[in-house]
């Protein structure tokens, strides 16, 4: 650092050289011999084989347009996709990042001129409303799956503890009783409840569905109140108290602070955990990967005492975007509409991989899978709705993110109200500031 000046000179010289050397690396033309290539990036997952089959069939049927399909590991696709998009490259059609990560940055195209009428009809419920894929009044992406959230519970442990396996808890008070009964009767073999705090998404996926479930005004990413336009993190207090109580009575699966989701899933599959909140992916995990012998059930998420479930959280999953840099609109449109249609989405639902958002597929009995354990428990119902858009994912508050504050409170013993009101005000300040300087529009988040 003492040689800052020297380095600066050097760097400046090299920067100039670099700029001179670096020509325009321009994006290549994807049309060759009258055949247009459309690139799709997808995450690796249970759907990969089905998507590959779809692509093969599509490419066999079409001569002028060909799909170039690339599937990528789930834990790195977002970082690298963003890297590619930031530098002006990237695929034509992609999924993986959240809409807030790509739409405001201008990486995505407005879909209104790309969808055909069939697609518009099939996705009618998603074309307007408080969705994160609608940005600045434009439809920037379409979800192809709905992911529901439920309380997973072990029916065997319920029975052993003298609880009714057909009546899972609906409130935090009942959760506490059931969890403690399970722990007590299992002779140290099982714990009432599992909470993997080392799983990054534990709040939106496992706590917020319950915390916001009883109050239709609250949405996720920090208990934002869409009526008052304020983050009201005090709403987390009953949940924090519940987990502290469970921890104190040793009914919480040990090591919650460093437990990750896979560790918890495994313990549940081994019959060591009575309950946890998860999403519809748990079905495949339990049935196919862990091959559990546990008789499990999935029930609507419990809510704080004195409330009842008004909104069952359901996330729209796997939002498909189109790159803002459109090269051949007709070809792109053909591929996108086919991609979102029954040709791909139908087999996916039939195989039990997703709950389709495509209403044609959703309502068509020929796409209902046969004989998947627990399928009906997870299937979306009328109460399952996408939480309203939250500014919690786009504001930049100072200090610790709310997830760290809340996990510290759950594991701690001190005052709850103070830290919650502190984190609320930090998030509110950041939100107000962003609204004031015009980077966010209050109308997008408030009713």
């Amino acid at each position, binding site marked *: 650092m003492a040689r800052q000046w020297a380095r600066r000179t050097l760097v400046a010289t090299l920067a100039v050289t670099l700029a001179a050397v*670096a020509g325009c*690396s321009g994006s290549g033309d994807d049309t060759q011999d009258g055949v247009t290539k459309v690139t799709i990036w997808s995450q*690796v997952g249970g759907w990969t084989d089905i998507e590959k089959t779809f692509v093969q069939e599509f490419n066999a049927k079409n001569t002028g347009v060909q799909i170039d399909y690339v599937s*990528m*590991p789930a834990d790195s696709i977002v970082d690298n996709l963003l890297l590619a998009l930031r530098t002006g490259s990237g695929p034509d059609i992609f999924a993986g990042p959240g809409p807030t990560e790509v739409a405001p940055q201008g990486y995505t195209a407005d879909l209104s001129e790309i969808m055909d009428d069939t697609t518009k009809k099939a996705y009618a419920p998603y074309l307007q409303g408080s969705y994160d894929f609608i940005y600045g009044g434009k439809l920037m992406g379409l979800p192809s799956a709905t992911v529901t959230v439920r309380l997973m519970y072990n029916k065997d442990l319920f029975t052993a503890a003298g609880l009714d396996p057909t009546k899972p808890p609906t409130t935090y008070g009942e959760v506490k009783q059931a969890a403690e009964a399970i722990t007590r009767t299992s002779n140290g073999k099982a714990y009432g409840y599992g909470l993997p705090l080392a799983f990054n998404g534990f709040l939106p996926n496992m706590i917020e569905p319950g915390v916001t479930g009883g109050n239709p005004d609250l949405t996720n990413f920090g208990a934002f109140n869409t009526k008052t336009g304020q983050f009201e993190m005090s709403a987390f207090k009953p949940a924090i108290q519940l987990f502290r109580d469970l921890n104190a009575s040793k009914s919480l699966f040990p090591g919650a602070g460093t437990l990750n989701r896979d560790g918890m899933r495994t313990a549940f599959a081994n019959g060591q955990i009575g309950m946890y909140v998860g999403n519809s992916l748990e079905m495949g*995990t339990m049935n196919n*990967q862990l091959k559990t012998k546990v008789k499990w059930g999935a029930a609507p998420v419990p809510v704080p005492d004195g409330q009842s479930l008004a909104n069952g959280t359901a996330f729209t999953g796997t939002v498909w975007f189109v790159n803002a840099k459109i090269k051949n609109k007709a070809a792109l449109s053909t591929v996108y509409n086919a991609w979102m249609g029954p040709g791909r989405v139908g087999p996916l639902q039939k195989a039990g991989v997703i709950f389709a958002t495509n209403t044609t597929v959703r309502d068509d009995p020929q796409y209902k899978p046969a004989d998947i354990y627990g399928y009906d428990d997870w299937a979306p119902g009328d109460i399952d709705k996408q939480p309203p858009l939250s500014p919690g994912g786009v504001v930049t508050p100072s200090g610790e993110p709310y997830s760290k504050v809340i996990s510290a409170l759950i594991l701690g013993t001190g005052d709850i109200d103070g830290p919650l009101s502190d984190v609320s005000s930090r998030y509110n300040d950041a939100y107000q500031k962003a609204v004031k300087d015009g980077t966010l529009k209050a109308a997008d988040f408030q009713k």
Partner: protein
Amino acid sequence: MSAGTTTRAAARRRRTLARTPLVIALTLLAIATLLPLIYALSASFKPLDELMANGSRLLPDTWRFANYSEAWEQAQFTQSLRNSLIVTVSAVVFGVLAASMCGYVLSRHLVWGQRVWEAALAAAIFLGAGTPTLYPRFLIAQKLDLLNLTGIVIVELAEIMVLTTFLVKGFCASLGTDVEDAARLDGCGLLRTYWHVSLPMMRPVLTTIVVLTFQWSWNAFQVPLAFTLPRPDVHTITVSVFALKTTNGDGLGNYAVLMAGAVLALIPIVAIYAVAQRYFMEGLTEGATKG
């Protein structure tokens, strides 16, 4: 005569006795060092549900060799092995050559702006910020049209060569210059002196930096991932192996196949190390009599 033999034999026995505790300690430490690796090896033969359920058992109940064939197939091992070899061998060859040259001339004060460079390199050892600078490095590589195997080699080397250059420089500074001076007086040019006189003397430090560069390049993950993600045909072995964990998407991590892949990826580097350490170290100490 017989008395002399007895004394010598006794001395040898005493020495052996004195060494026994040392050998025992070394063996115990070796076992402790190996245990986690043996655990990983055994995990690579377990079915996923068994690994997750009875993670604590050392030996698998069911031996699932399919973990290896699945890892081999899903990670496209033949291809990624080839890519990794290309990257690593070029990194070692160019990296070791470049670092030994640079370290050598720096140690002999033969570089313009010597002090500035030394300070900048020294600072960079602790300034490199890893992940946070991934984005700018990607941008620069893109500008230079280097989002390929060549680019991976260069970017990996940019980080590790700072260190290896320093190691060479430190080593050369402690080497005497007598032989070199003699060679120079005989009219040897700088390059020839370096190649014929100094480089052979650097053997111990060269072993270190060969192993260091090999390990660095073979195990590199973030840079190859970011640079080659959209093109599976240029994935290196670590990128393909880590992708194995997420073959179930957002479902359960596929740890068993991941372990199998990691074991497969480990074999070449262990072999190289065993050979390298024999060749360099043993060769060097051969004939030296020591107590």
